[in-house]
């Protein structure tokens, strides 16, 4: 059985990997980096049987600060996803990225490190630090290896998320200070805060303000309508691997924060704001889908589809039902897999043709049959076809939300129209790329999947179906965790 | 004649005695001594016509200076030109105010408690001397600047830099003496040297202090500010008449002050000999002197004379050095100050402290 030192390994390994990669030179960089990522993935897999782990060491006792790490189902699967996607993106980047290779790989490991630390930490101060730190590697990844408008995109990305985080800092401090006022001692451990706030809830008014400060930060990260406009820009300009991690991991931090911090700490406030937030989610779902349909840039299309999908996640969260939460969590993972795979697929074309314009392609099903099959599978996973992973998440969210007391069932109906709209834009994409006649002689030169691509896509496609047909390995632990969280939320708010 | 009046009279007496000595006796005599010693060293006569042994020569010179026309060149800065010699004398005189010239005495029972033989009975005399001593630089700086003459300015620049630098060295050297004596009160410092003059434990300090006072008073071998060969005569090139006389006067007063300070700090002040104080000889400096039964004045005069003799030796040293040691170059001067004396001074303080602490502990 693993003990709590496992958490230290989990947290520290990527940092060490960052350093190792940063100081590697020459041809070894890629392989060193990829093998480190693979080792880390294996390490992360080892923790599968772990239900709960807690590590604490005193940092600064007078202010109640500690090196607190906490692993449970919620953090575990996101870590696994992050390790998995990092491994895949780094493997993908081999042969695609040539300049400043060591820095590139090191930044991905650094991103991994901050994400994992952010997911694991049980200390509000650490949480904030790593929350901010996450921005930095991504900022450089987009800013250095990005597209032509990368400066605009990085500025937008950074300012948006940073503005949000600052608001969250206020909320964190308020949470921290309120605890002190109540108990007379300092503590920034999430667990002690949670216990305290459950036993002595803050006045609703106070809760609301703190919750708002949290929610804006998380909403920007998610991104929830109307804070979503940074996402398409960032995605379009980011290098493929950056997009994968951005969509697959970084966006999840927002929803993770909601599920881990915002709602459990302030259930009353969450209930109070649930309705408008649900409304925003629904707007985001529909807007994302409709706008995605009208895109000519493939990456932008996928980016807007992310907005739509994450709208589902937030809807599931704010409808405040257990089933909805399980679905939301599952949908986070699903989105990571599907959207990550979609970005990789776009990258596959982009690396060969250097254009993301949808109209440059057509009839690729003939030229690239394997590619088209994988694209279709992933696209249908993205539109939540039963039998794929997307369906389970969406079904749980919709069924859960429908039972919610938070908002009318009509909203769920409105949100579900995304099933139709999603089909519209995804089939639009598939049709424009794969079907029809090929108009461009350049497309004739495209090569289909080689060994490298199969290595990348077989796990992804396998995951699509594994989760689609047997989600219990993931849902089981998550369901228990959700039950545990919901047992702390007052009955009348659920 | 009540006690207050006696006190006032005593106060006035001290002032008269000291300033009378300083301005009316020491300065003229020193000018004469200087010239005579110079002549002696250079194997010539020196002034020997006015008065016996030419002793009145200085007086005649003084009269001449007073009677000369008050020249004021066109380009000078008027106020400061006049101000400089005046403020040259003030600190020199002020520093003199705290120099004790004898042991505290009741003047043979005139007072209930022993009175100190210094004009301002300040208990932080050492610091006061340092404070006032540091002001001497103003007059030189101002004089040079006000003269609006490039030699003068250069001279005053040199003077200020040099005085600031060596003031530090002197201060550092004296700090170790203060550490040894455990007081900043000059009288107490002297009293602490009853058996052991500070020159013995503080020899290193004296080695630092001695060049420092030469530099402070702008005397050869550190007379760069007025180096005739380079800067004509530096900051007082444009001065003549009594304004020049004031500078001249102040220089000798300063010499006296620093000599007195050296004696007080290192050479036991008015004490008789090293390891042999008056007390052991049989002179009770605080009261009656058994030798002369009932007459109290010698109790003051004998230590005072002894003190004056020591000071005179240092004055002679100044003169002696002036005519025997060649002038330093300016960068040599500065590097001696900053790179040798000041680090040495700091080292000396640490050493002294360590020794004292060690001594206390054991």
């Amino acid at each position: 059985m693993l003990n709590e030192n496992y958490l230290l390994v989990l947290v520290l390994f990527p940092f060490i990997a960052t350093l190792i990669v940063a100081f590697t030179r020459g041809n070894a960089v890629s392989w060193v980096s990829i093998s480190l990522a693979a080792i880390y993935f294996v390490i992360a897999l080892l923790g599968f049987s772990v239900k709960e782990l807690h590590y604490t060491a005193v940092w600064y006792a007078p202010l109640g600060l500690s090196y607190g790490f906490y692993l449970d189902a919620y953090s575990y699967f996101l870590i696994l996803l992050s390790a998995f996607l990092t491994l895949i993106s780094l493997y993908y980047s081999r042969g695609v990225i040539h300049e400043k290779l060591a820095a590139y790989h090191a930044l991905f490991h650094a991103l991994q490190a901050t994400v994992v630390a952010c997911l694991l930490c049980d200390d509000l101060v650490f949480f904030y630090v790593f929350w901010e730190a996450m921005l930095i590697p991504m900022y450089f990844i987009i800013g250095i290896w990005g597209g032509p408008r990368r400066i605009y995109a990085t500025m937008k990305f950074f300012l948006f998320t940073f503005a949000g985080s600052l608001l969250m800092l206020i909320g964190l401090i308020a949470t921290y200070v309120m605890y002190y006022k109540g108990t007379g001692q300092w503590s920034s451990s999430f667990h002690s805060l949670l216990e305290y706030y459950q036993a002595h809830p803050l006045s609703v008014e106070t809760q609301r303000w703190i919750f708002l400060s949290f929610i804006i930060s998380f909403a920007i990260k998610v991104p929830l309508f109307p804070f979503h406009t940074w996402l398409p820009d960032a995605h379009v300009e980011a290098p493929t691997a950056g997009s994968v991690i951005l969509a697959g991991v970084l966006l999840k931090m927002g929803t993770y924060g909601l599920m881990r911090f915002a709602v459990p700490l302030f259930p009353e406030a969450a209930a109070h704001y649930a309705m408008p937030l649900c409304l925003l989610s629904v707007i985001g779902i529909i807007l994302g889908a409709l706008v995605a349909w009208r895109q000519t840039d493939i990456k932008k299309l996928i980016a807007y589809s992310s907005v739509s999908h994450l709208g589902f996640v937030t809807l599931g969260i704010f409808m405040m039902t257990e089933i909805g939460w399980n679905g939301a969590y599952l949908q986070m993972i699903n989105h990571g897999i599907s959207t990550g795979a979609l970005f990789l697929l776009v990258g596959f074309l982009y690396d060969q043709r250097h254009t993301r314009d949808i109209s440059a392609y057509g009839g690729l099903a003939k030229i690239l049959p394997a590619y088209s099959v994988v694209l279709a599978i992933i696209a249908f996973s993205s539109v939540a076809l039963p039998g794929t992973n997307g369906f389970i998440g969406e079904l749980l969210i919709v069924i859960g939300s429908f039972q919610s007391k938070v908002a009318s069932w009509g909203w769920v109906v409105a949100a579900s129209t995304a099933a139709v709209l999603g089909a519209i834009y995804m089939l639009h994409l598939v049709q424009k790329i794969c079907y029809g006649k090929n108009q461009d002689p350049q497309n004739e030169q495209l090569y289909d999947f080689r060994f490298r691509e199969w290595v990348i896509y077989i796990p992804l496609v396998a995951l699509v179906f594994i989760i689609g047909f047997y989600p219990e390995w993931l849902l089981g632990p998550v369901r228990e965790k959700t039950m545990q969280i919901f047992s702390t939320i007052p009955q009348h708010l659920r | 004649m009540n006690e207050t009046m006696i006190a006032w009279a005593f106060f006035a007496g001290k002032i008269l005695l000291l300033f009378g000595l300083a301005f009316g006796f020491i300065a003229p005599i020193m000018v004469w001594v200087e010239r005579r010693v110079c002549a002696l060293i250079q194997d010539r006569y020196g002034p020997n016509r006015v008065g016996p042994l030419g002793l009145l020569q200085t007086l005649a010179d003084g009269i001449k200076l007073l009677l000369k026309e008050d020249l004021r060149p066109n380009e000078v800065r008027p106020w400061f030109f006049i101000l400089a010699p005046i403020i040259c004398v003030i600190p020199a005189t002020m520093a003199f105010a705290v120099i004790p010239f004898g042991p505290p005495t009741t003047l043979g029972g005139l007072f209930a408690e022993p009175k100190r033989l210094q004009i301002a009975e300040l208990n932080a005399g050492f610091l006061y001397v340092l404070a006032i001593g540091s002001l001497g630089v103003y007059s030189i700086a101002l004089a040079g600047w006000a003269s609006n003459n490039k030699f003068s300015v250069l001279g005053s620049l040199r003077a200020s830099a040099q005085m600031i630098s060596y003031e530090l060295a002197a201060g550092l050297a004296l700090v170790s003496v203060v550490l040894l004596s455990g007081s900043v009160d000059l009288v107490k410092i002297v009293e602490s040297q009853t058996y052991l003059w500070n020159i013995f434990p503080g020899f290193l300090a004296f080695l630092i202090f001695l060049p420092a006072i030469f530099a402070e008073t702008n005397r050869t071998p550190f007379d760069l500010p007025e180096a005739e060969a380079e800067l004509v005569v530096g900051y007082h090139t444009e001065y003549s008449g009594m304004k020049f006389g004031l500078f001249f006067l102040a220089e000798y007063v300063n010499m006296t002050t620093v000599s007195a300070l050296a004696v007080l700090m290192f050479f036991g002040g008015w004490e008789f000999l090293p390891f042999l104080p008056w007390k052991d000889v049989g002179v009770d400096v605080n009261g009656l002197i058994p030798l002369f039964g009932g007459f109290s004045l010698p109790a003051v005069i004998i230590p005072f004379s002894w003190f004056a003799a020591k000071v005179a030796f240092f004055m002679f040293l100044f003169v002696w050095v002036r005519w025997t040691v060649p002038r330093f170059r300016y960068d040599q001067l500065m590097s001696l100050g900053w790179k040798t004396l000041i680090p040495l001074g700091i080292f000396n303080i640490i050493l002294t402290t360590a020794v004292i602490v060690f001594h206390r502990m054991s």
Partner: protein
Amino acid sequence: MEIQQILFFSFAALILLSAALVALRPRPIESAMWLILNFFLTAGLYILLGSNFVSIIQVLVYAGAIMVLFVFVILLLNLDPREFGSEAGLPWTSLVMFIGFLTFIVLSLHVATPELMKKLPEIKETGAGVFGSIESISMVLLKNYVWGFEIAGVILLLALIGVGLLAYRKPPVRARAIHTSTTDTMKDGGAS
């Protein structure tokens, strides 16, 4: 009126006068001179207040060291009026003076309260000696405020290093300097 009061008022008047002159005289050297006077007077005031040691330090450090440095720099630069700048215009001066006056008024309003109008107490013996004496001050300084003392030392050291760095100029290579100066003279000579 006691003698101390007379002394105080005359000192205060002179201090204010010299302060005003420091602010108002156009040339730096005059300001410096008045400031030196001001420091002396302030030192006198400190003696009246019983802080003898402070008074001596005021003369030693302020008048004897800091101001010497100023005068030294003034001499070094040897500026003419063109180089030390034009005078501020009347509107600016009067605005500044007005605000200064307002500040004085407001500050005075703050302290013009009955409890601050009580006379100062007589000087007492503190534990280590008379108030304001070197013993008394140093006992407190080196016991209660030893950290402040140390930090002051560190600040001084930092300033020392900083000034050294600021003032340091690479000395020109001597031979080269001579060479250039001769060529300069030759040029000058050629030109004239």
